[in-house]
């Protein structure tokens, strides 16, 4: 339960951190809040030669409104995001999902970027990225690139990040003021890994029909997935639509089968959770519409 010996680096600047990463590559691990890397180090599931501590780097811990986007730095602590007015108003899906992330004590240290870079299939924050259509900002020594969340996650604990790159920020589209959101998950125990999770963000037109619908599932496949809901746009946002969308979602997933849960159970949960989040998100959107009128 103690890590292997490693070299510790705490660079002063992002440039310096990227230089060390470019030099060490796969032999390096990037440490921010340590809520995932810490356990993996202690259990010796990872044995890096070098640990690069970015938790004190200036500028990576900001939440900023930039035009039609919100940019959250990689080292924004989950508890700070939960307390942020910008997150509450502009990223309501993330605000609903954060209480499901770990526990009070782990959210006080864990970061948004750490969860995204780690890419656990059941993690809530990556699921929010996929549902919201967010973009991951990666920086290496010589280049910066932006990858859509739906292309970023490639499997369990796997992303398109190259070994000389670091997740430096997440760019989120600001949720439209009239959108409704919902997030739900099922775990053995609150704060444990989700067996299945669902997030939904939708908008209604003046007649109460679905004008836009984004639905995602986490913990079901080896990465957070977006359900292709295009065929349901234009339908009335009622209980029948929620049932139909949920059935479609459950039929379209290819669930994992492991000692945590069978594929059939995950498929069943996908349907139940999808129906709940679509109904709740529609209700939230209707309430916002009522307030606006």
């Amino acid at each position, binding site marked *: *339960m*103690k*890590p*292997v*010996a*490693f*070299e*510790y*680096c*705490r*660079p*002063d600047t992002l440039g*310096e951190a990227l230089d060390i990463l470019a030099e060490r590559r796969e032999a390096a691990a990037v*440490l921010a809040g*340590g*809520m995932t890397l*810490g*356990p993996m*180090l*202690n*259990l010796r599931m990872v044995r890096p*030669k070098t*640990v690069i*501590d970015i*938790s004190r780097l200036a500028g990576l811990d900001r939440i900023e409104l930039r035009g039609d986007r919100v940019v959250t730095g990689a080292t924004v602590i989950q*508890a700070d995001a939960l307390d942020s007015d910008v997150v509450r108003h502009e990223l309501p899906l993330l605000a609903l999902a954060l*209480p499901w992330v*770990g*526990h*009070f*004590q*782990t959210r*006080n*240290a864990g970061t948004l970027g750490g969860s995204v870079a780690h890419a656990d299939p059941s993690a809530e924050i990556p699921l929010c990225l996929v549902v919201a259509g967010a973009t991951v900002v990666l920086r290496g020594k010589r280049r910066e690139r932006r990858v859509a969340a739906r292309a970023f996650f490639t499997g369990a604990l796997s992303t398109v990040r190259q070994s000389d790159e670091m997740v430096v920020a997440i760019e989120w589209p600001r949720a439209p003021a009239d959108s409704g959101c919902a997030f739900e998950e099922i775990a053995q*125990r*609150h*704060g444990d890994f989700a067996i299945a999770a669902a997030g939904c963000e939708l908008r209604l037109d003046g007649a109460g029909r679905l004008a836009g619908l984004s639905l995602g599932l986490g913990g079901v496949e080896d990465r957070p997935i977006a359900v292709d809901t295009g065929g349901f746009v234009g339908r009335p946002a009622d209980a029948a639509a929620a049932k139909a969308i949920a059935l479609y979602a459950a039929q379209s997933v290819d669930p994992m089968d492991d000692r945590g849960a069978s594929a059939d159970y995950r498929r069943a949960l996908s349907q139940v959770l999808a129906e709940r989040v679509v109904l709740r998100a529609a209700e939230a959107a209707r309430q916002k519409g009522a307030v606006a009128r």
Partner: protein
Amino acid sequence: MSVRVAPEQKQRITLTVNGKVRSGLAEPRMLLTDFLRHELQVFGVHVGCEHGVCGACTILVAGRAVRSCTRYAVQMEGADITTVEGLADPGTLNVLQQAFVRHHALQCGFCTAGILLSATHFLAKNNAPSEAEVRDMLSGHICRCTGYVGIVAAIMDAAGTLRGG
């Protein structure tokens, strides 16, 4: 100043623990938990699972309840740490600790120090919590003796006292 510490190299770490400036040596892989116990003799920090699950090692860093087993002493230069020893003067108990005694909120006591520190931060943020909120906060701690009923009652009671009610 950038810091670089070789794998077997011992680095001097100076930080504040319970209001006193303390200093000790740590190689990079030394858990903060072990540093506090073995270098600084702060034995109120308990070692449970060592991978961030059980909550026994919970301390306050700059007032926030966090695990001390999933961070490393080398990270903590200049940090401000509170452990259970810092909650009250020696030989006395604070409001929260007194409530734990009254409600039989501990049996073996192994988890208690961590829970007291979590509850301290939690009540500082929200001095009128619901029972559900207290239970949600406690989901980050494992107690094998009490079944949590006394712990929840103690924290609710302490919240009332701290509000002046």
